[in-house]
Every structure is written in C-alpha cells, then in structure tokens.
C-alpha cells in the first residue's frame, strides 16, 4: 500500500469517528426540534445545537478533504474543488455537485446568522437535520469506492 493510500485510509478512519459524534448530535437535536421558544432554551440545549452545527460542518469539511485525496490518487483534477465534486458525482459518491454546495452553504450561513431571527434559525436546523443523512450516505458511498479500489493492508 502506498503512503498516499494509507493516508486516505487514515482520513476515512477519522471520518468514521466524526460520523459517530455527528449521529449522536443528530439524535440530540432531533429531540429538541421543533423549537417554539428560543428564549426558553437552557444552556445545555444551546450547547447541543452548537455541537451539532460544528460536527455537521467539520464532517462535511473532512469528507471533502478525503474526496480530494481520492481525486489526487486517481490523478484527476483537484482544483478548483468543483472538479473534485464533479469526479465524485461521476463515481456516484455524491448525489450532485449542486446539492453538496447547497449543504455547504447552509452550514456557512447558519454560522453567519446564528443570532438572528428565530424562525430563520429554526429553518436552518430543520434543513441541516434533513441534510445530515445525505452526508452519511455519501460517506458510505465513498467508503465503498475505497474498499473496492484500494487494499487496506
């Protein structure tokens, strides 16, 4: 196994750990929704929302880095990042480039607008909870590609 393929497996192992943290956060946030009164939220509930937001963001970020490493290994273009996404779409690892970018923008926007309108904030979390299983599925598809393409030992 080349050093670079070993690095891809290391990234996938890390992604698997992040996945478990995210799955836990999804269950915690799902139990909180719908939130009718944001003012009434306790500190630990705000912490639950914050943890979900961060884990969701970091999971997609790290998945993107792993995808880039795969593109490099396969000697495909890796810049701009859209080239990586187009390759992943072709492999069937992601549903579409547009959907990946929309989810990425969703988590950028929630970080930006965190203290604003409660209705908008609620919609952000609803949409992120809806998008999270898509990320998990894309992760599974990335693992499948790597398992069928690279030997782990």
């Amino acid at each position, binding site marked *: 196994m080349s050093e670079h393929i070993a690095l891809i497996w290391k990234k996938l192992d890390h992604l698997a750990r992040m996945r478990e943290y995210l799955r836990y956060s999804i269950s915690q946030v799902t139990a909180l929704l719908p939130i009718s009164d944001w003012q009434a939220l306790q500190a630990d509930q705000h912490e639950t929302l914050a943890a979900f937001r961060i884990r969701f963001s970091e999971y997609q970020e790290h998945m993107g880095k792993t995808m880039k490493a795969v593109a490099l290994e396969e000697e495909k273009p890796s810049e701009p990042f*859209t080239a990586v996404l187009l390759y992943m779409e072709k492999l069937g690892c992601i549903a579409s480039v*547009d959907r990946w*970018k*929309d989810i990425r*923008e*969703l988590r950028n*926007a929630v970080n930006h607008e965190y203290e604003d309108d409660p209705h908008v904030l609620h*919609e*952000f979390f609803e*949409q992120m909870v809806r998008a999270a299983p898509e990320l998990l599925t894309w992760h599974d598809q990335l693992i499948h590609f790597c398992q069928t393409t690279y030997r782990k030992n």
Partner: protein
Amino acid sequence: MRLTPAQIDTIKSTAQTVLGADVQVTLFGSRVHDEIKGGDVDLYVEMAQPDLMKKIRCKVSLQDQLDMPVDLIVKPHGDHSPIALIAKHEGIRL
C-alpha cells in the same frame, strides 16, 4: 455601478429562475460605488414567501457563475428591517 451588463443579466436571470419570475433585485453595498475597488456583490431581493433553500441555491449559483463572493439578502415584500431600508435607500434596482 461596478457590474458588467453580462453580470447584471446573469444576476437577474438566475434570481428569476430560482426565486420567481416577479422578483426585483437591488444591488447595494460597495459595488454601487465606482470609486471603490473589490468587494462582495451585495444583493437585496424581496419576494412573497422567502424560502431558505431557494435562497441558498440562488446564492451558490450566482457565486459559481460570477466567480465572486455574493451576499444575498431575501426578505418578504415591504420589509422594514435596517438592512432592507439601507438596500432600498442606497441601492440600485437591476
């Protein structure tokens, strides 16, 4: 205003396709001013029922096409928030 006619066409057609045929788009912020350099493209749009995912689709699509950072504000018709008042007062309708 520091946008080319082609960029204005892209903005208007994308907003109408994604957000609805009747939307009005206003450019505000630094790109209204000819003497300033650089800066994001700040856009203000009013529509009957703002939709988060449509807004995000519109923003991502504009950034891809223009290859520039876009800040897109979408509010309901007749909004009187501070950002709406600034955009309506200082902006240029495209």
